[in-house]
């Protein structure tokens, strides 16, 4: 019922476009024709980004109303798959994880938005959504992994804080020194906390190791990274994987409550930490952001560009959307990747797809954000690789490597046999499909 009016409007618009001979425009011919597009989001009351985007766009295009449709955060893709299969999905939906982009794109559930993307060439992560030269989605946020550290615990343990020159060996040495230093000072915190996600090891290994290729089925590049984690666990410099898993440790409490002095996490944690400081769920302490530790010295130091990883979050258009909605949705996509939306997102602590100086200034203007130069450098400058390449085999390999992750870190399987098994399984169960 609701669709009927916009559909008529859309048909009329299309006809008008043809008559006027001005095809190629993104905007509807009648800019005042009212259109409502639906947008999928999750946890709306605590995830303000969707409303920020919707309101920002509506302010610039008063005739377009963006209506939010709420999904479950953890089971977003399951619900969206069901809705798309049944034809009940909203006009614009979020690609929450890049690894599901392949599913939606190859399944014909994403409209070609190359014409919109043409004007967004400066957005770095746009390439992640391109297949055969066509663009199927537009990123609006781009998180990347950085090192969070507690300046007060560093001082207490008398360990030199990160200066941007760290390789992984420096990081491991610091974690151990911190643990002993904090203990000597009468504290109980560990030097580091490594969350149970597989990305905490595999994301860095794949992004930083020269020549590493997930799709080659050769996973030997993971070994040094796992070896270091195992060493840190054995040395007691971070809670073991088993402890973190069985006690459901949360990285928010580990870092926010000063249980650990260092935490590798995505830039989304900035907003969370700020919020928890206000609510009292996190302590108020002096903290900072440093670039993630590097594979070798060649990418360290503030004159180089540190390599890290992080997936973009994008928006795509449901091909079943009406003509008028599609046009409005394309305009919306053009908006979300731009600087205006970027500043609005930075205002709520989110890292947008395009980080400009203005965006950085907005974010560092927020109350509670560290003001030192290294934090600003770490936030703004990095070469962020996608966590995984987009391919038919990615989901399968990810699953298998997740099992490998728990097998290695729980100590169930030795490092070498575990990697060998993963390679065999990749060859026999995934890459041959």
């Amino acid at each position: 019922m609701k669709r009927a009016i916009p559909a008529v409007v859309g048909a009329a618009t299309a006809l008008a476009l043809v008559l006027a001979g001005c095809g190629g425009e993104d905007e509807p011919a009648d800019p005042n024709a009212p259109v409502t597009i639906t947008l999928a989001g999750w946890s709306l009351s605590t995830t303000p980004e969707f409303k920020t985007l919707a309101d920002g766009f509506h302010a610039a295009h008063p005739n377009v109303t963006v209506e939010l449709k709420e999904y479950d955060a953890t089971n977003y893709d399951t619900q969206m798959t069901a809705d798309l299969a049944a034809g009940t999905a909203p006009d614009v939906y979020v690609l929450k994880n890049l690894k599901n982009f392949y599913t939606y794109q190859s399944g014909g559930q994403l409209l070609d938005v190359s014409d919109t993307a043409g004007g967004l060439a400066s957005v770095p992560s746009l390439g992640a959504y391109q297949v055969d030269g066509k663009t199927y989605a537009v990123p609006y946020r781009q998180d990347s992994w950085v090192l969070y550290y507690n300046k007060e615990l560093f001082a207490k343990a008398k360990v030199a804080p990160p200066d941007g020159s760290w390789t992984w060996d420096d990081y491991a040495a610091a974690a151990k020194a911190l643990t002993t230093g904090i203990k000597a000072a009468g504290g109980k915190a560990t030097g580091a906390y490594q969350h149970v996600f597989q990305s905490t090891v595999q994301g860095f290994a794949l992004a930083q190791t020269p020549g590493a290729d997930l799709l080659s089925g050769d996973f030997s590049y993971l070994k040094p990274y796992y070896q270091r984690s195992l060493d840190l666990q054995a040395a007691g410099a971070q809670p073991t994987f088993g402890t973190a898993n069985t006690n459901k440790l949360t990285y928010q409490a580990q870092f926010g409550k000063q249980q650990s002095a260092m935490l590798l996490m995505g830039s989304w944690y900035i907003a969370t930490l700020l919020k928890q400081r206000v609510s009292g769920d996190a302590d108020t302490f002096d903290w900072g952001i440093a670039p993630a530790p590097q594979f070798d010295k060649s990418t360290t130091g503030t004159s180089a560009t540190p390599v890290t990883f992080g997936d973009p979050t994008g928006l795509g258009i449901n091909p079943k959307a009406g003509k008028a909605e599609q046009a409005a949705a394309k305009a919306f996509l053009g908006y979300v990747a731009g600087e205006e939306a970027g500043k609005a997102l930075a205002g709520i602590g989110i890292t947008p797809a395009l980080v400009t100086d203005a965006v950085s200034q907005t974010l560092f203007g927020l109350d509670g954000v560290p003001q030192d130069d290294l934090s600003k450098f770490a936030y703004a400058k990095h070469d962020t690789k996608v966590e995984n390449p987009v391919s038919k085999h990615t989901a399968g390999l990810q699953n298998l490597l997740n099992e490998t992750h728990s097998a290695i870190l729980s100590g169930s399987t030795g490092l070498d046999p575990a990697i060998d098994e993963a390679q065999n399984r990749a060859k026999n169960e995934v890459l041959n499909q």
Partner: protein
Amino acid sequence: MATLSRPRPRRSLVWRNTVAGWSFILPNFAGFAALTLVPVVALFYLAFTNWNVFGVAEWTGTANFRRMWNDASFWTALKNTVYYTVFHIPLTMAAALGLALLLNRKLRGVAFFRTVAFFPYITSIVAIAVVWNQLFSPEYGPVNAFLRWVGIDNPPGWTTSADWSMPAVILVGTWRYMGYYMLLFLAGLQTIPAQLYEAAQIDGATPWQRFVNVTLPGLRHTTFFVTVMLTIESFKVFDLILVMTQGGPGQSTLVLSQYVYQKGFVENQFGYASAVSIVLFAICFGVTLVQFLVNRRVER
């Protein structure tokens, strides 16, 4: 089990019975057929296709089943499922029957104890996973603290060890479901005529003899139901393992239902996932059928 009298099977009688039978079954069957049977039949078709949920399913014959034959993860999942089932069924059965017998007497506070026994089944599964995982926590958990206290120096790693994760899950599975099956046994115990016990007592039967000669035979129909349901539920175990171990560490607790979910919803290979679930179905159905046949023979 002779139903009705035993007259010559007259045509009109067969007709009348068919109408009567269907009129009883129809209200439930209509809903069942439309909402469950149709999708299940579709599933049988999809198992022979390559389907990514969105497009048209492409017929690939037995390709999915041939792939499964060479899929080591499938076999691991099958092996784990059987492992779980083989231990979960007898343990739960014994615990449930024991509880039912214990709580089927006139006992002060029996309502309270029954409710307590049912509690694991109604407690939120997330809370269960959290608490049991903490209890099993290798370094700090009370279980291992106790084991160390009684002199076991190297207690198992439970959910963080590939060898002990399945026993841990089986234990929690039994703990969770025994109250549920206790309820069914309780209902079954109500159908045993008290006279039988009185007669046995007059004959001087010991409690054990009463149990073997009165209780067990009297519970036959219930036991059969519990066995079938327990078998199916064990083969289909999913959410408990998902929240407790997510199939890990490694693949040590990966079970078939979870494999189906992984292949379907995570890797978007719904055709293959359908084929795996058909195999799971066939195994359950085969075991159930054997149980039916055995049951029928026993009834004769």
